[in-house]
């Protein structure tokens, strides 16, 4: 599914990713943990094609195709979804309109028929209900005036609607109450399928109680320094990154 080899990238002339090697096979969920500033969000932006992140070496393939050669919207159409660490506000743009526009853009690119407002509403209601999210969320401006937790739920809602092949969740669990944490986990678990993979970036072991990862990677200073099973997350929670540093 996703194959990253020797990936290096800079931001504003400063090297942040210093050679990432990572493979996520189809159907697997991998967690990425690591201290603040280690490059986790940078990796997610590089994978999704954000401007300003200059790739200086390495390669990334997504189901065999060169991901780095694609525009961000092409990557989205191909099935890549990023749940933002800091979801962006779009004043005056209704959430329902935004979600429908996004869904239709992706459907169109995949050769599926577009949904009209009524059809969309039906689909959206189903997803809202499954995720225990209030319908009010559709009526408001995109992320405008949303609480931190509401913004994250909105990301999960979008993920559920767009049904991606690869979902990158960048600290979607940060700042969530327990109920919301379950919503996030349910969102990811509902997508679990042989053709679905996910990269879950998190600081906390508790999310991984709900989304049990196949592998846990530790990213430090722009490199993956350790990889293990779910028990690695527990170990990190107890002893912090110092032990990893020592081992690396």
């Amino acid at each position, binding site marked *: 599914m996703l194959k990253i080899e020797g990936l290096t990238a800079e931001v504003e002339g400063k090297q942040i990713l210093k050679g990432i090697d990572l493979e996520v096979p189809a159907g697997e969920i991998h967690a990425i943990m690591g201290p603040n500033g280690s490059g986790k969000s940078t990796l997610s932006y590089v994978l*999704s*094609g*954000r*401007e*300003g992140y200059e790739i200086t070496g390495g390669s990334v393939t997504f189901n065999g195709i060169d991901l780095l050669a694609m*525009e*961000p*919207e092409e*990557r*989205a*159409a191909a099935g890549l*979804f*990023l749940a*933002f660490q800091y*979801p*962006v*506000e*779009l*004043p*005056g*743009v209704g959430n329902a*309109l*935004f979600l429908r*526009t*996004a*869904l239709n*853009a*992706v459907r169109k*690119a995949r050769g599926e028929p577009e949904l009209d407002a009524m059809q969309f509403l039906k689909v959206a209601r189903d997803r809202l209900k499954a995720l225990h999210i209030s319908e009010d969320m559709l009526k408001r*401006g*995109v992320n405008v005036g949303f609480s931190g937790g509401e913004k994250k739920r909105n990301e999960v809602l*979008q993920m559920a609607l*767009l049904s991606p092949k690869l979902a990158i969740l960048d600290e979607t669990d940060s700042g969530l109450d327990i109920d919301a944490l379950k919503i996030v986990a349910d969102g990811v678990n509902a997508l679990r399928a042989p053709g679905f993979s996910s990269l879950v970036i998190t600081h906390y072991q508790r999310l991984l109680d709900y989304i049990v990862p196949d592998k846990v990677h530790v990213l430090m200073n722009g490199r993956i320094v350790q990889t293990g099973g779910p028990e690695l997350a527990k170990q990190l929670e107890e002893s912090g990154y110092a032990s990893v540093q020592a081992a690396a």
Partner: protein
Amino acid sequence: MPAVTETIDTVQSVTEGTYKWGFETDIEMEFAPKGLNEDIVRFISKKKNEPQWLLDWRLKAFAIWKKMEEPVWAAVKYPPIDYQDAYYYAAPVQKVKPKSLDEVDPELLRTYAKLGIPLKEQAILAGVEGAGETPSDAGRMPVAVDAVFDSVSVATTFKARLEKEGIIFCAISEAVQTHPELVRQYLGTVVPQGDNFYAALNSAVFTDGSFVYIPKGVRCPMELSTYFRINAKSTGQFERTLIIAEEGSTVSYLEGCTAPMRDENQLHAAVVELVALDDATIKYSTVQNWYPGDAEGRGGIYNFVTKRAHCRGRRSKVSWTQVETGSAITWKYPSCVLLGDDSVGEFYSVAITNNRQQADTGTKMIHVGKRTTSTIVSKGISAGRGQNTYRGLVRVAPTASSARNFTQCDSLLIGDQCGAHTVPYIENRCMTAKVEHEATTSRIAEDQLFYCRQRGLSEEDAVGLIVNGFCREVLKELPMEFAVEAQKLLQISLEGSVG
């Protein structure tokens, strides 16, 4: 390429490719000789078979105009206009005045069809008498249309139905013949002949436009709409619109405008006068889409327009909503003189300038009556090398006790070669009045664009979505059907091919 530069490119490639209304209609035209003098004024008046008083009125305007200087205070730049090098009268040749759309040149109708004008009543008018009683599209609010082609009104629809309610909706040249007393009573009472240079010019040579009269207590049962089309070369368009809403009446009126793509600049100097009496409401919406010129600023319409409303009656209300996407230069300040106690003035505006377009637009709210209120919401969007100026005046006379105004001016910049300017004048001479002004300037942020693109939207769709969001407060003031049109138009005026 950084997102912003790419967006500028996107936006810059727009005008050549995407002005979809730039075609020309090949039709037999009748012109007055080029140039402007008393004889031309007489010629126009004679063509329109006008009474002596109106000819005198025009000649007086012409005399005033000759003594006036073109205004230079607006933040717009253009080479001097040679007023002698233009035609002041151009009309499709027509043997008799058409009684129905049937008799109108099919080429003209095709033009309007291309413009997407809902002249759907064609079938009705062509068919059985009385068929006009049923709206053309079931469940849809019918729209009565007056179509003005260069200097003349070519067709007005739904007339019979409106006449039943006592509503007059026709070409102003026709109203001069059929209701001279009304025209004479109101013409020039809101915008006098000598009001400003362009208004004086218009008063001398105006050729057509719409006339609307809503009788006492009548709520106009449909949207009234006029489509203006400049087609002929080297021709100025000087239309004049007069709307009178009697006591307790209500009307919603919409104008739309387009022109062919030409290398030369063409002048459009309209005058619109609105009169609202006690408890009357006039909603006047404009979707202005004159040809804006090409990317280098060649061609395009000079849109120098005077629009003013008199809220003469108590509790009368006038609401201006404008979406200005076209024209090389826009010079336009739809205003309200709030004379009646408790009268209300509103101005909602979206102005887009792209490439070399320049817009100096805003409003004047003149508070005279007690407890008068006004609201101004202006959204300016500048892209390419566009220059966008909001210029507004809020004047509160000593008589306007407890008057209130709220003004909000927001500017959105796309790229770094465009400009946005806000010039609010406030003259408050009343102790008990309250005047508030808020202004913001922002850019489309890179993270907003990226967020949208990550969700699968193309860059141009993302820009369109964000711009529409920025304009929402104004767009929601438009009549439903036109709001959708306007949204598409905003998108089109900013779209282009990415990459």
